C-alpha cells in the first residue's frame, strides 16, 4: 500500500507527460536527492568521496552515455573508454590553451569533440551490425588510445605523456586540481550529472528517444515507418559520445587529477559496459544502480577481509575480487538479464500491490 497508484488520475496529456506520473516516484526521487545533496556530504569521509561517491557518479554518467547508444539505439559499442579519453584530452587542451575559460564551459565544449569523433566512428554502423559493429568500435578504441600516446601536442609535449589537471577555480573556489576539496568536487560532479540526466530523460522519452528505440527494436520496420536510419544512428552516436565525453572530462578533471593514454584503454570500456548491462540496458536509473554495484562493490569487498580480521594477502583479496565480480556478472545475467533496473521495476510492482499478493 506504500506504493499505491490508485486514485492518481491524469486529467491532461501534459500531466500524463510529467516526469513522474506516479507521486511516490517523485517522493522517492526527492529522498534520493536529499541523500545525495545533504546527507552524504555531511557524513562521508574523504575516502568515501574519492573512492565511492565521485566515481560512482562519473561512471554512472559514462554508462548513461553508453546506454543511450546501446540500450536505446541498440548499437553495441566497445569504445567508450576511448571516447571518454577524447573528452578528457579535449578539455585539457581547452583549459591549457584558454586558461581563462570557465571549467563548466570547457567541459561542455569538450563533449562536442567527443561527439564528433563518436559520430565519425559511428559511420560504419550504417552498414555494419551486431558484433561486427562492436569490433568496429574497438577500432576506435585502439586507434584513439594510440593517438593519445603518439600525438604529443595533445599532452602539451610533457615528457611522461601524461596530462595533469592544474588548479582551477570558479567563483573563488578551487574546483579542480590537487588543491580542490573532495566535497567541492563532489557537488560539482553531482550538479553536472543531475543536469545531464535530466536532459537524457527528456530526450529518451520524446521523439528522438522513440526513434532510437524503434531502430533498436527493429531497424527495418523503423525505416519503413519513415525513420531515417542514418540520422537516428548518427544522432545516437553523437548524443551518446557527447555524454561519454563529458564524463571523460569529469573523470580526469574532477576525480583523477591526471591521466595517461592507457587509462582510457579497453578495461575502462568494459567497465562502463558492465555498468550499463548490469544496471539494465534501456534504463536511466539502471546506470546508477550498475555503477553502485560495479564501482562500489570492489571497494567494499576489499575492505571485508580486513574488517573480519582475516589474514588474507592484499593480492589474494584482489584475485578473489576479480573472481567474485566475474561470478556476480554471470549470476546477475542468469537471474535477471535485464539488469538491476528491471529488478527495481519488479519490486516496485510488488510494492504497488503490497500487502496483497496479486
Amino acid at each position, binding site marked *: 500500500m506504500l506504493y499505491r497508484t490508485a486514485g492518481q488520475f491524469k486529467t491532461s496529456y501534459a500531466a500524463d507527460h510529467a516526469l513522474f506520473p506516479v507521486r511516490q516516484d517523485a517522493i522517492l526521487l526527492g529522498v534520493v536527492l536529499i541523500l545525495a545533496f545533504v546527507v552524504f556530504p555531511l557524513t562521508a569521509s574523504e575516502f568515501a568521496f574519492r573512492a565511492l561517491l565521485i566515481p560512482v557518479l562519473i561512471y554512472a554518467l559514462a554508462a548513461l552515455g553508453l546506454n543511450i547508444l*546501446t540500450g536505446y539505439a541498440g548499437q553495441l559499442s566497445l569504445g567508450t573508454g576511448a571516447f571518454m579519453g577524447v573528452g578528457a584530452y579535449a578539455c585539457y587542451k581547452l583549459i591549457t590553451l584558454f586558461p581563462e575559460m570557465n571549467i563548466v564551459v570547457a567541459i561542455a565544449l569538450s563533449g562536442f569533440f567527443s561527439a564528433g569523433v563518436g559520430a565519425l566512428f559511428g559511420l560504419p554502423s550504417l552498414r555494419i551490425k551486431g558484433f561486427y559493429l562492436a569490433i568496429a568500435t574497438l577500432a576506435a578504441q585502439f586507434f584513439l588510445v594510440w593517438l593519445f600516446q603518439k600525438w604529443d601536442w595533445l599532452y602539451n609535449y610533457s615528457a611522461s605523456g601524461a596530462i595533469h589537471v592544474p588548479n582551477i577555480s570558479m567563483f573563488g573556489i578551487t574546483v579542480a586540481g590537487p588543491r580542490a576539496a573532495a566535497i567541492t568536487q563532489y557537488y560539482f560532479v553531482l550538479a553536472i550529472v543531475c543536469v545531464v540526466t535530466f536532459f537524457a530523460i527528456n530526450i529518451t522519452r520524446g521523439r528522438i528517444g522513440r526513434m532510437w528505440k524503434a531502430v533498436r527494436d527493429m531497424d527495418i520496420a523503423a525505416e519503413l515507418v519513415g525513420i531515417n536510419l542514418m540520422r537516428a544512428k548518427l544522432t545516437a552516436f553523437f548524443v551518446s559520445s557527447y555524454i561519454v565525453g563529458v564524463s571523460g572530462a569529469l573523470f580526469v578533471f574532477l576525480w583523477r587529477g591526471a591521466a595517461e593514454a592507457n587509462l582510457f584503454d579497453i578495461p575502462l570500456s568494459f567497465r562502463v559496459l558492465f555498468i550499463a548491462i548490469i544496471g539494465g540496458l534501456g534504463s536511466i536509473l539502471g546506470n546508477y544502480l550498475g555503477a553502485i554495484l560495479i564501482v562500489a562493490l570492489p571497494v567494499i569487498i576489499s575492505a571485508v577481509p580486513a574488517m573480519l580480521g582475516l589474514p588474507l594477502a592484499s593480492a589474494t583479496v584482489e584475485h578473489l575480487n576479480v573472481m567474485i565480480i566475474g561470478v556476480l556478472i554471470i549470476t546477475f545475467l542468469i537471474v535477471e538479464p535485464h539488469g538491476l533496473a528491471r529488478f527495481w521495476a519488479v519490486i516496485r510492482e510488488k510494492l504497488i500491490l503490497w500487502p496483497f499478493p496479486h
Partner: protein
Amino acid sequence: MDFLNAIFVQPFADMAAAPDFLLQVVWEGLVGGVLYALIALGFVLIYKSSRIFNFAQGIMVVFAALTLVGLTEKGVPALLALPLTLLVMLVLAVTIERAVLRPLVNQPDIILFMATIGITLFLIGFGEIIFGGENKVMITRELMIPTDSITLDLFGGFVSIEQKDLTSVIGAVLLVAALLLFLNRTKTGRAIRALGDDHQAALSVGISLSTIWVVVWFIAGVIALATGIAWGARAGVSFALEVIAYKALPVLMLGGLESVMGAIIGGLAIGILEKLFEVYWGQPLMGGNTEAWFAYVVALIVLLFRPQGLFGERIIERV
C-alpha cells in the same frame, strides 16, 4: 612530395634493397598470423555452434598454458602434464556448459557475450590464485620442441627462422587439418556444422546441444592450449598473453564470424600485413606501435565495402 615519397616509394625501395629483411618480416608476420588464425578459429567454432561471441578465448589460452606449466612446476612430468591439462580443459568446458551456457540458453547475444567476459574475469582471478601471476617459462624442451634457430643465407643477408616457430606453424597446420577432418568426417563434426547452419533444425533432428557445446568448448580449449604453447615458447607464459585475443577480433571481422577458412586466411593476411605496415610505414612515419590498431582499421575498411566480411555470404534482409 617528400611525404608522398615516404609513403609510396621509399618503403618499396627499402623492400627491394634488402630482400632478406623483407623475407624475415614476412616470416615474423606469418608466425604471428598463424597464432591469430588459431585463436580466431576457437572463436569461430564456438560462434558457429552456439552463437556465442566467446570473449574468454584469450584467457583460455593463458589458462591452458599456465596449467601446463604450473603442473610441471609442481613436479608432474611434462608428458603427463599435457594430457592432464587437456583434462582440465575438458572439465572447464563441462563446467562452463553447466554453469553458464545452460542457464543462459536463448538469451540475447549481448548477454551471452557479457557472460563470457564474466568467465574471463573469473578465470583471471582463479588462475592467479592457483598459479600466481609471474611470468613463467614454457616447458619447450620437455615437450621436445626444438629451440635452435636456422639461419638461411639469402640475398647477401640472412633470414633467421626459429625452430620453435617452425614447429608451431607445422603444429598449427596439423591441428587445422585434424580439425577439418573431424568436422567433415565424423558424426559429431557434422552435427557441429549442422548446428552452425540452422540451430532450430539441428535441435529438431535430435542433436544434443549440451553434448555439442561441451565438445566445441573443449576443442576451443585444445586450440587454446596449442596457441598457448606456441606463443608461450616465444615470450613466456603470463597473463599478458591475454591481449593477443584482441588481435583475433579483426581477423573475425575480416573472415566472418562463421567461416573456418575465413579465420585461417584472415589470420595469416592480418599477421603479415600488420608486420609489413609496421616495419615499412608505421615505424618510419608514425612513431611505431601501429600494430595496436592496424588490423582493426583494415577490417573496418573491408567491412565498409563488404559488410558480410571477406568470406561471409551476402545478407538478404526480409520483413
